[in-house]
């Protein structure tokens, strides 16, 4: 009987993986291939897809257009390249800021008394599990012209008898950056904490015994050993920032348009799914390239699983 089971091992494995493969092929790989096919198509007058093989949408993304205002045949407007660049820059800035904020907190939790570590971690989980959309709304309440920050500033100005005009904070690039940092901060704290927690205390003791000061210990022991966490966190933050459209939609208004907003509008308001598909493939390729070079340089941490 054992022999028969052993012979069937491969069949058993296939049977176990089959449902997963159905979902992955049906709802991931086929949709991606379909997106590719659609991106070569053209928009019909009623907003549907006419299948063809043209690079029109990609040429349009590069900024060239045949639909020019001044009657010229071909004109150039780098609008879409600017949107791509803005999204990449925002992804980069958000990631850097999030690392700077997350690191001390993660370090604090990892070095706290083991009994209290869980409590500190749960304090990070509560904002994380508070819904994504609700968290953006909270920043809307803070940043509005009549929002909490302006009210508080107004009080202070009143106390000090300084004339005060409410600051315009909502619907600016800064508001989007703050919103993104807030949304994705927990995704950096958790993996960094996981890799910091693994560092053996004897390493710190050894560093101290050998005369290293705290800065040197940080640079030579703590930072290098926590790199896997930083890498995992970067992947968990950078990729979603590149594709999110709610934060820029609600905190940026019509002022800050990112790739995510561009794609979303093609499927709703503007209704050109072919152009939206092309933009979404370019977005995917951009993130894959950045992730590939980044992980090749720093390795791919297993910490990605914890968050």
């Amino acid at each position, binding site marked *: 009987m054992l022999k028969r089971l052993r012979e069937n091992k491969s069949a058993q494995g296939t049977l176990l993986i089959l449902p997963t493969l159905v979902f992955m092929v049906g709802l991931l790989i086929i949709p991606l291939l379909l997106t590719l096919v659609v991106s070569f198509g053209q928009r019909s007058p009623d907003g549907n897809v006419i299948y063809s093989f043209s690079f029109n949408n990609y040429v349009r993304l590069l900024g060239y257009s045949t639909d020019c205002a001044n009657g010229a045949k071909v004109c150039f407007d780098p609008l879409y390249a600017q949107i791509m660049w803005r999204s990449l820059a925002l992804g980069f800035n958000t990631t850097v800021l999030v690392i700077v*904020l997350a690191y*001390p907190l993660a370090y604090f939790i990892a070095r706290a008394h083991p009994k209290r570590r869980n409590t500190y971690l749960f304090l990070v989980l509560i904002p994380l*599990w508070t819904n994504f959309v*609700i968290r953006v709304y909270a920043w809307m309440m803070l940043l509005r012209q*009549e929002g909490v920050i302006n009210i508080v500033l107004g009080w202070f100005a009143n106390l000090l008898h300084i004339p005060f005009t409410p600051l315009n904070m909502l619907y600016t690039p800064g508001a989007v950056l703050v919103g993104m940092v807030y949304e994705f901060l927990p995704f950096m704290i958790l993996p960094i904490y996981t890799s910091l927690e693994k560092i053996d205390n004897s390493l710190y003791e050894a560093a101290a015994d050998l005369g290293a000061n705290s800065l040197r210990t940080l640079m030579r022991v703590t930072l290098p050993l926590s790199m896997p966490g930083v890498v995992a966190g970067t992947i968990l933050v950078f990729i979603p920032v590149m594709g999110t459209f709610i934060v820029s939609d609600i905190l940026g208004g019509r002022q800050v348009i990112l790739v995510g907003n561009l794609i979303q509008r093609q499927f709703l308001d503007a209704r050109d799914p072919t152009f939206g598909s092309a933009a979404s493939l370019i977005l995917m390729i951009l993130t894959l390239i950045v992730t590939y070079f980044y992980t090749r340089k720093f390795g791919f941490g297993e910490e990605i699983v914890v968050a």
Partner: protein
Amino acid sequence: MNPFRRSPFVITATMLVYAFLYLPIVVLVLYSFNASRTNVVFTGFIPKFADTVLADGSNIVQSPCGPFHWFCELSKNTDVTNAAKNTLTIAFIATFVSTVVGTMAALALQRYNFKLKSFSQLSLYIPIVIPEIVMGIGILTLFSQLFGLLNNVLNLNGDARLTLGLGTVIVSHIAFMIPFVTLVVQARLQGFEKAYEEAAMDLGANEWITFQRITFPMILPGVLSGALLAFTLSLDDFVITFFTNGPGSTTLPIYVYGLLRRIITPQVNALSTVWITIVFLAVLMLQWIQNREQK
């Protein structure tokens, strides 16, 4: 040297970051008790009785529910209760299916050799390394093209037409949750002693009994944390739901987003407060369970 010693810099930075994490939440909760109808300025708590007249009477809400006025309004809002029902239905079904399917996949990948193994493992990483919107519009395109085709071929009309709805949201949620469950369970299986299973088999247990009595109880914590992760991902999901929901399958995040684009009402704050309270209690319960396990 005290291993728990920390520099004042780390402590200050930590406190500031915690303040940054909680300040928006505190404001959100405070404003859900706001007496102002437009929710612009905090005008104090809602008075309980209608005869309490305040200076700015026109803008003040008076309610038999007292400070909980917006919560009373919320419970009467059928859009919200329907959205809550949808959110939970989707989360429970999708979590159950993705946990079963994902655990099976983890067992297959960790224990068996078969064709397509590396392809399967690779496909599970895709949802993690591509932005969600790419997957969302891909699935939307698939459903709209497929449904259009089927409606034409099968000549479906009226209510029989295939459209986006609860079904499409659930199926899409399952698809993006499976990889997370599989990765969590796989991590658990990696540190798994095969000797226990071999001992059970030596003692005459067949494969099914071994799985039931040995393997499953041992991987259960991994399966549960995978399920919990899947559940929170489903509750929190906005992007995939946004592209796959149809009339009648609105979830809470989609409903709130729709409101935010039009008006701001303290009802949204009340809803947020309810949500935060539930999360807080869930986290507290989780910590209590973990502490008990450690003892």
